[in-house]
């Protein structure tokens, strides 16, 4: 007994000495994200567990903070010197926080930066700096209830305007509501996609006021297209203009009351769980055969400039850029990789949209890349609602000049 106790103390002391360097190196990363909760898991729990397994010296503490709450919760921490090490961000946040010097420059010499396609690269740059490592791109297209289309003998989702009109006519003849077309979000998606597809002016020029929406022939034709779709009985503008695209429209589509609905691919997961809903996620119909795959650059990771664990944070961010790790998130989100490897996590229902992307029908949603000012988005939704309420009473110029005024109003 006498010899056992000193030996035990000795062994404990040795163990402590051996463990000391490990403890000194271990860090806990404070990570915030508006995904990773029960509603939108995004594979984060699985990924963090895997990351911690591969990096035993780094522990990750993930805090879920909703997107709207991020606006109010994170800025005081960033300015108060107590920032999270890594934060989920999007481009509007990057613009504000990056300009204020609150985000660390992730540099352009990393392996992942070279894999980002050139057009996205230029949109992600903030001057000479890079403040965000992109995680995913999500599609915005046309949800089509194939069960309803098959009732009128149509087997494929429409991808061209002519096909869309024919589909609408067949559905309307069968007393099936063809399309839910809300002034907020749904209708603007179709108009923006068709306008940008045919536009001679770059999206950035329209968003900066260097070019005018009212004088742009493609957007003018886009407004005429909306009228033509109404004439083709695709939708009842007065009835649907003011519907809430985030609640009523979704419930009407999932309830089988409408055959088509322009919306975002983030709904695919929820729609797949609805028993009996036979749907596909197709591109937005346009003049091209492929239709338009309107891609939304969504989220990424940023590192706080005042982070005390910059090195570990950088390791965490770069680890997510590895294709095998990112794939977990893409699968969970039904999203596309922002890198040039063409990886995606979309299910079979999104095959028409995948095909449109493969055929080169991709257009980036200009708000997500800050090509168009945020205030314009609200004005587009409002003005489209007003337009749809009475398409015959408002001219194309009435509608599009409001967009120009919103751009001019942004300061």
């Amino acid at each position: 007994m006498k010899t056992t106790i000193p030996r035990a103390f000795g062994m404990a002391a040795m163990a402590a000495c051996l463990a000391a360097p490990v403890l000194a190196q271990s860090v806990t990363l404070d990570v915030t994200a508006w995904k990773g909760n029960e509603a939108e898991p995004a594979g984060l729990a699985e990924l963090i567990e895997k990351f911690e397994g591969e990096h035993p010296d780094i522990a990750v503490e993930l805090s879920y903070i909703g997107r709207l709450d991020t606006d109010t919760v994170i800025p005081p921490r960033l300015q108060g010197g107590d920032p999270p090490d890594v934060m989920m961000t999007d481009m509007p946040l990057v613009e504000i926080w990056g300009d204020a010097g609150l985000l660390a420059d992730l540099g352009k010499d990393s392996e992942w930066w070279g894999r980002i396609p050139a057009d996205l690269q230029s949109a992600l740059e903030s001057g000479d700096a890079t403040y965000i490592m992109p995680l995913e791109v999500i599609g915005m297209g046309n949800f089509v209830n194939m069960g309803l289309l098959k009732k009128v003998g149509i087997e494929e989702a429409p991808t061209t305007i002519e096909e869309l009109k024919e589909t609408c006519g067949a559905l309307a003849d069968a007393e099936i509501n063809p399309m839910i077309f809300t002034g907020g979000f749904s209708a603007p998606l179709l108009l923006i996609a068709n306008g940008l597809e045919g536009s001679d002016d770059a999206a950035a020029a329209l968003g900066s006021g260097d070019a005018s929406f009212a004088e742009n022939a493609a957007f003018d034709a886009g407004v005429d297209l909306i009228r033509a779709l109404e004439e083709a009985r695709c939708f009842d503008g007065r009835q649907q203009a003011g519907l809430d695209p985030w609640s009523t429209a979704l419930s009407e589509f999932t309830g089988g009351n409408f055959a088509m609905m322009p919306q975002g691919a983030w709904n695919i997961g929820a729609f797949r769980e609805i028993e009996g809903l036979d749907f596909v996620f197709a591109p937005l119909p346009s003049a091209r055969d492929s239709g338009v795959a309107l891609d939304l650059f969504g989220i990424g990771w940023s590192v706080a400039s005042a982070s005390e664990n910059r090195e570990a944070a950088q390791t965490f961010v770069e680890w997510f850029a590895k294709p095998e790790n990112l794939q977990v998130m893409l699968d969970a989100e039904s999203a596309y990789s922002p890198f040039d490897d063409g990886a995606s996590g979309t299910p079979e229902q999104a095959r028409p949209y995948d095909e449109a992307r493969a055929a080169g029908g991709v257009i980036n949603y200009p708000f997500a890349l800050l090509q168009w000012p945020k205030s314009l988005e609200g004005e587009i939704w409002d003005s489209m609602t007003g337009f749809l309420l009475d398409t015959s009473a408002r001219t194309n110029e009435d509608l599009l000049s409001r967009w120009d005024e919103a751009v001019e109003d942004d300061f």
Partner: protein
Amino acid sequence: MTSKRTMFLFTLPALIVLGVFFVYPIVLTVQMSFTNFTGVGQADPVGLANYERIVSRDRYPAALWVTVKFTTVVVLIQTMAGLFFAAMLHRLPAIRNLCRAALFTPAMMSFVVVGYVWQFIYSPFSGGLNAALTQVGLEGWTRGWLGDPDTALLAIAFAHVWMFTGYTTAIFLAGYANIPAEIEEAGRLDNASSWQRFRYLEVPLLAPSFTINIMLSTIGTLKTFELPFIMTRGGPDGATRTLSLEIIGQLFGKYRFGFASSLSIVMLVIVIAVAVFQNWYLRRREDVS
């Protein structure tokens, strides 16, 4: 002298609380309203540009006009409805407590729940209101209540009134409790009808309740954003975009903290002006009563 110093010392904690939590934030908001602050980083002074912007664009006076219309409709209908229910319940003591609790229940519910419930009631496709109208043969009246600019604001106002009428009723019932029984008794002895007692005795004597109800509902409604935010997000085409909703949109959608501050100051001035005028007018009416 000692007494004055003691009084000052006793009021000091309250003054500190007022200063720190009320005056200082207002001063800070005024200061911010002259900058282009985005919520983080440097706030550069922009002079009167934010205020100039408010008066030079149609969007902001339009939001103010929507707020005024919404407040007028809500305050008028809610006060009348509250008075009606209070007058009824005053005459029906057997069911008074039960009905008061039932009427008050919506006021205890979350705005989010109320907003979503009414959104579905007003839905043009499978909504309860259109279904009820169809059932009673008024199919021609069915419409997208929240999607039509002519009805959206009224539809939200109705939901707001439904939510807070119980509150107004409770205040009027408290006012009824303060009316001396002898006055009612005198009215009855003079053979005054129920309507005459209501019109010539109860309404004048309920003047303090009118003051409280109108003041509270006006101030609360002028600042409201919850139901318009949940039910229409300010649409269709700005028909329900109140000033508060505009401020929220500028703050968290567009990160224009400086500009949102100037809108807040405009709203504060309007609320104070309306409250002071109402207080002066209604108090004067109490004195006359």
